């Protein structure tokens, strides 16, 4: 982005970045909600989904937003009002912080952290705070149970997520997301460099673990016990209404989008296409049009991953809380550790 915005004054740059961030968060979120939640889920259930607002219900999202915005913002009488109001903002905040490190093109990025992926994992853990205090401050037993469940779950699945990422970091030898993208697209597999080297192939176990962890972090089925409506009546969101619920809602899907973006950066080559197709040699030799096409490629890959997430969400029943924890600690984490060990051994050997 620095190259693109060289002529723009500092404040303009900042403004553009903020706007870009909002677009990068809200646009995928809206698309995901419409395509997957409204349409794909309905189709999977032999129905059409919203059809009235706009052609094929395409304006439904705005109708929903309008509905929520005009609903009363109810704060339960015995709730801790300030914290209760703050909680959804914290959740959404973590999403915005998260998107800051995702690269969208050779020059289209917000910040270029050297420890990008580490940063991403760190800020993604902030949302736990929001969920916990949402559960606590609602003064509702179901919410408290939901909040506690969510916190336990998010902490438990953060570990396999970090561990799965380490495999990629070992392979790419960097934590910088931009460099990870470049490493994948300029690499080669078994001497063939036509397809680059997307880590989804060599780090398949890591990819699966990462996707499972994302599923859990997003509290999507089969890991949706924090908001399990048949048990806890939406858990920590029970008491929320109006635009605060909307923020939670946006947060949920925006985070899904951003996590999918990070997964696509880590495992699918992010915004890039294999460099050998166009004869690029390094990141500096990439043509400028990639800054426009790159985000689209990224978006496609993201949608693919979100499709998988949502597909599983609409097909599976949920696990029980103890099964979830057991799965994380006895299944994912050992496998992830093994993956790291194997990866590092292979890295040293080859």
């Amino acid at each position, binding site marked *: 982005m620095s190259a693109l915005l060289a002529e723009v004054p500092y404040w303009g740059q900042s403004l553009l970045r903020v706007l870009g961030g909002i677009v990068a968060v809200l646009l995928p979120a809206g698309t995901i909600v419409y395509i997957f939640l409204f349409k794909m889920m309905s189709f999977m259930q032999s129905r059409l989904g919203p059809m009235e607002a706009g052609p094929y219900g395409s304006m439904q999202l705005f109708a929903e937003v309008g509905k929520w915005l005009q609903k009363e913002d109810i704060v339960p009488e015995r709730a801790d009002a300030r914290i209760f109001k703050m909680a959804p903002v914290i959740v959404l905040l973590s999403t915005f912080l998260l998107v800051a490190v995702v690269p969208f093109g050779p020059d289209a990025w917000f910040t270029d952290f050297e420890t990008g992926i*580490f*940063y991403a994992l*760190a800020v993604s*853990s*902030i949302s736990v*705070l929001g969920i916990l205090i949402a559960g*606590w401050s609602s003064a509702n037993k179901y919410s408290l149970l939901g909040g506690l469940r969510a916190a336990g779950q998010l*902490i438990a699945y*953060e570990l396999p997520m970090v561990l799965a990422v380490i495999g990629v970091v070992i392979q790419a030898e960097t934590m910088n997301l931009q460099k990870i993208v470049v490493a994948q697209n300029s690499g080669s597999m078994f001497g063939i460099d036509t397809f680059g080297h997307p880590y989804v192939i060599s780090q398949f176990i890591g990819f699966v673990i990462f996707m499972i962890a994302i599923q859990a972090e997003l509290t999507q089925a089969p890991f949706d016990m924090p908001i399990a409506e048949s048990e806890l009546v939406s858990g920590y969101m029970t008491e929320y209404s109006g635009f605060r619920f909307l923020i939670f809602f946006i947060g949920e899907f925006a985070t899904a989008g951003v996590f999918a973006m990070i997964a696509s950066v880590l495992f699918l080559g992010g915004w890039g296409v294999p460099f050998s197709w166009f004869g690029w040699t390094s990141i500096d030799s990439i043509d400028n049009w990639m800054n426009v096409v790159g985000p689209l490629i990224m978006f496609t890959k993201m949608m693919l991953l979100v499709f998988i997430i949502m597909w599983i969400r609409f097909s599976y029943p949920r696990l029980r809380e103890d099964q979830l924890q057991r799965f994380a600690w006895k299944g994912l984490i050992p496998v992830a550790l093994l993956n790291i060990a194997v990866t590092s051994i292979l890295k040293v050997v080859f």
Partner: protein
Amino acid sequence: MIAQNIGFWIIAVLMVVSALRVVTTNNVVHAALWLVVVLAGAAGQYILLAAEFVAITQVLVYIGAVMVLFLFGTMLTRARIGAESDLNNSYKKLGIPVGLVMLVAMGLALTRSFGDEKLPESAKVVSIQEVSDQIFGPYLLPFWALSFVLLAAVVGAIVLARKD
């Protein structure tokens, strides 16, 4: 440098105010949330001190894990919503002179030792590689010890929290 100084002072004031709220507020969960602000501020200061990795670790470990544990703990011990009266000792006022005396002592020592010494202007950000060379090189033994401490802590926490 000016921008950084401004940043420092904003964050510092925020941190001090939040830290004061941590020790004075009469709601445990509020105290935890104020502590989050202090910790986040500390992460900011680390970035000013060219310690990016430590800063992010601070966020990951402190805010992502430690504070969540705190909130967990408070919620499991039925933290009440609203003010609680019995969070402080009867002799809490003793703390003020102690803290002040300590502050004065430290202030005097610091002023005399460092005066208006400045930090190097062009400190480059410490890379992860340097830190890892340190950890797995000369400081390997502490690293091992730390690993054992963590293991012991895990086992200990489980033993403590188990019911049977």
